[in-house]
């Protein structure tokens, strides 16, 4: 299948006759990026699958509202981030859990869950990331693993690049501290 340029993809997404096919292109193009972004937030594959599906269905329902002021990637990232955080908050409220309970659940998924393949030191790194405050966790993942530019993260999270750099810096320090204390 021929990959469409973003501009052409947007044109096709706007036209009722080509919208569905173009959406198929969109899904194929962005599914892995969105999946791993969501997976790093919710950890468990089944949860990530649910959130990814909701993300893409929400994108489909709101395609007519996308005005191309932001890049498609930024728009999708924003929806995915909101959906993943909403998922965790909903889970927290439904089970009357606090932040620590949720972190314990995520750590359990990390240790016992399926579709996780890494050495002990990398699992420990993920545990350290899970312990970070929400924003630092998001920023660290988006910068370290997803290698997004601060400008891109800023557009997605609506936080200034200065604030993001500070969050990243604090996240790195806390991870280092966690690992050193475990050793």
């Amino acid at each position, binding site marked *: 299948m021929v990959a469409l340029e973003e501009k052409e993809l947007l044109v096709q997404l706007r036209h009722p006759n080509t919208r569905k096919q173009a959406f198929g292109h969109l899904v194929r193009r962005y599914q892995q990026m969105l999946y791993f972004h969501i997976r790093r937030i919710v950890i468990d594959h089944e949860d990530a699958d649910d959130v990814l599906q909701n993300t893409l269905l929400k994108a489909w329902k709101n395609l007519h509202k996308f005005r191309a002021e932001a890049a498609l990637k930024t728009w999708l990232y924003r929806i995915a981030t909101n959906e993943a955080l909403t998922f965790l908050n909903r889970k927290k409220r439904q089970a009357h859990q606090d932040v620590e309970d949720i972190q314990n659940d995520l750590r359990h998924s990390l240790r016992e869950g399926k*579709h996780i393949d890494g050495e002990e030191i*990398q699992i420990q790194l993920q545990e350290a990331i899970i312990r970070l405050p929400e924003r630092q966790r998001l920023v660290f993942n988006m910068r370290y693993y997803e290698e997004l530019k601060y400008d891109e993260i800023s557009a997605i999270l609506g936080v200034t690049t200065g604030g993001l750099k500070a969050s990243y810096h604090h996240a790195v320090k806390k991870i280092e501290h966690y690992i050193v204390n475990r050793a």
Partner: protein
Amino acid sequence: MNDKKHPSEEWQEELQDAPNLQRLKRESIFHPPDGYFDRLAEHIQESVEKTPSTTASTFLNQVPKKNIFSVPALYFEELPHRLMQLVDHIPIPAEESRPIKPLWRPQYVLAIAASVSLLLMVAIWLFPSTKNVLELKDIPVEDLMAEIDWQDIPAETLVEVLGEEKDLFDQLDESGQEEKILNDLLQEMDDNELEDLLLDI
């Protein structure tokens, strides 16, 4: 006329109360090795290149960056197909079918503000720790209207969510009684619907 003093004069004046210091010859006693400044830039550059990363973490520099999360076999091959089947059942509103509403229309903004306030109060009401403090039926609309300062939730988002659920835009067009309709809609919702609405926002 420019009466600004030369820096050397200012310096002399500042030492008026220290005659001994004033008499001393002002020169540096510190001398770098010969050619130090000629090699400095090169030396710094070499040091920068030897620094492994911009992060302050030695741990992160040592651990290979690896994605430990994997997916079931054929997951990414099957996902688009699965999604496109779901999409078939979701009609997408055409751009031209929904006229742009002037959100800044005074009575509309007022109605939205009241509803936002109501939702926020409901949010408090829904929290177990404050349960029984507030009930929807006990909140007079006038009080809600007074809560206009609570604008953390974008009004547009609220209207969109309500509109999707109840075809609100059409009703607003026909009756022009935005405030009443918005509040009626909220009053009609049960706890679960309100909770979902809040989560959507």
